[in-house]
């Protein structure tokens, strides 16, 4: 089976700094990583390929430097990498992104064989929207399985997939037909270490690079800024509260005294907290009897 995994290169969020005066992101020197949620998708795809045969194609859309993430994915064992890059894609929101990606996935299917499963992470760590996966499924007419915790069964003969999907208050066991789009939940598997052979192959691998035309995108007006219905009107730093926190305690106080002072202050400011705690403590005592 041919599997496509959509990944995104994101800035390592732990290292992002905001310029204190201009309120702009200081991108210089911030290392980039594969969106961590995408690794669960990639690993699941590799496992399915190892079990069922076939190929895994990784796909990303981004600037030319996003090639680094694709090469990394190849070291984990992906068979092929496609970079979708074009100035027409710049500034895409989630609707425009799913348009470009789904066009590219169609082209990947035409070029290297029909796609049975498209994988994506549950969301990215920079945008956090979780919208692009469902967008791709809708545009391609694939059955959509989000927040998948486990893939129980894939029957390529019958074209049936069975998964456990995280839902509100429980787990749904769903059965559906290929082709499907699956977004994997974090913790659903553990990323393998890339083999030395994969690493060597990845270092020299040729990464297929497509612009909008090469990817067969039918309408560049639906891409990038022009194809994005949402408009970011303002980016700003949150205003601090008028007052800062009141510091509890005086110099030289012991930790016990500090804790007592904090508790008194909490009870003075929020009497129902004290009442709740008394009730809770009384309930605990009942249980002990």
């Amino acid at each position: 089976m041919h599997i496509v995994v959509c990944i995104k290169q994101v800035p390592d969020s732990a290292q992002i700094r905001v310029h204190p005066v201009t309120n702009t992101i200081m991108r210089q020197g911030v290392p980039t990583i594969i969106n961590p949620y995408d690794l669960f998708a990639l690993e699941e795809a590799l496992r399915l390929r190892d079990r069922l045969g076939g190929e895994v194609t990784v796909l990303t859309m981004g600037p030319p430097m996003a090639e680094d993430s694709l090469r990394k994915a190849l070291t984990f064992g992906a068979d092929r990498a496609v970079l979708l890059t074009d100035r027409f894609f710049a500034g895409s929101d989630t609707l425009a992104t799913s348009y470009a990606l789904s066009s590219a996935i169609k082209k990947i299917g035409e070029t290297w064989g029909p796609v049975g499963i498209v994988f994506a992470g549950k969301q990215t760590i920079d945008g956090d929207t979780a919208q692009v996966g469902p967008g791709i499924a809708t545009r391609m007419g694939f059955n959509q399985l989000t927040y998948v915790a486990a893939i129980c069964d894939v029957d390529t003969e019958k074209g049936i997939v069975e998964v456990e999907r995280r839902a509100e208050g429980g787990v749904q066991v769903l059965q559906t037909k290929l082709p499907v789009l699956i977004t994997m939940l974090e913790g659903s598997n553990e990323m393998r270490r890339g083999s030395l052979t994969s690493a060597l192959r990845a270092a020299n691998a040729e990464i297929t690079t497509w612009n909008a035309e090469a990817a067969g995108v039918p309408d560049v007006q639906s891409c990038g800024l022009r194809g994005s219905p949402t408009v970011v009107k303002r980016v700003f730093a949150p205003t601090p509260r008028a007052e800062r926190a009141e510091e509890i305690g005086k110099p030289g106080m012991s930790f016990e005294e500090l804790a007592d002072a904090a508790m008194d202050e909490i009870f003075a400011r929020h009497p129902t907290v004290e009442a709740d705690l008394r009730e809770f403590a009384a309930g605990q005592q009942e249980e002990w009897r």
Partner: protein
Amino acid sequence: MTDAPQKKPQPAGGRAGMRKELPEHFKAYRHVWVFIEYEHGAIHPVSLELLGEGRKLADKLGVELAGLLVGGDREELLAAAGECWEHGADLTYLIADPILEHYRNQPYTKALTDLVNTFKPEILLLGATTLGRDLAGSVATTLATGLTADCTELAIDDERSLAATRPTFGGSLLCTIHTLNFRPQMATVRPRVMAMPQREAGRTGRVVEHPLDMREEDIVTKVLRFIADRDSNEVQLAYADIVVAGGLGLRSAENFQLVKDLARVLGAEYGGSRPLVQKGWITSDRQIGQTGKTIRPKLYIAAGISGAIQHRVGVEGADMILAINTDPNAPILDFAHLAIVADALEVLPALTRAFSRRLSVNRLAG
């Protein structure tokens, strides 16, 4: 995957979304809608929270507020409609069909897009739950309109446009996003971000029923089983009255036990900041912040958490925040109410002792 908040604000022109005039066919779109998440015989609290917020938006616009109820059992949905009216809805659109008994993307997407195309709302809000996020992306893509995820603030600007504010860049800044030239303007909001509105007993409204017009044979995906969570801690953390949380200031996974100890004495839920999940010290269902749980407890104790914006937006609804941090300049002191500037590893056990002493003294005295 590129997401909206990644872009810098662009000057007008060039982009489709910035055209000044709303296209003629969208001008008829009126009213504010809230998708009501109804599952296993109950309305998800986030839907009622959104009715409270939707009421404010509808009043500002001078339009009606509607709740959308879809499900399998008509009688149950009618009862739920009453609950929507009591939380601020003027009417409820209702689609009852056995096909809709359990959530599945395909029939729910059809139900919502049919309702939108028939009744034309200007704003559609959904809870950012696993269900809401699964559904919102499909509905917005099908309708080819804008969708803003995980908003922390919703407002109407001078041009009657929905201003949806959310954290961006991993939570270091906020951005305000508009869908100027497409309708409906869609947004999702996480549970507990908006306050629960006062219930107005006896408040009534109208019901507008609509058919689904689908057969079970048309739906590819089948629900084989539903395994309910034994540990419903997810709901407990978001809705707990007292929450104790730890951050990297705890310095090791073993020290997280100090957070649990205090939580136990207080009958509180415990959680942590995002780095702790990334380090594997706590599970992701215990993460507090923009990408984890949003909480609105009476008391929130944050130990060794610096207070990045993505954490801040998840806890700002707390009545009272006590921050414990060695750094007097930590950002958390900008939004906490009380602070102890000291090592959390010393303060947490002292608090545990102080509370248990106080509560047990009172118990003996009582």
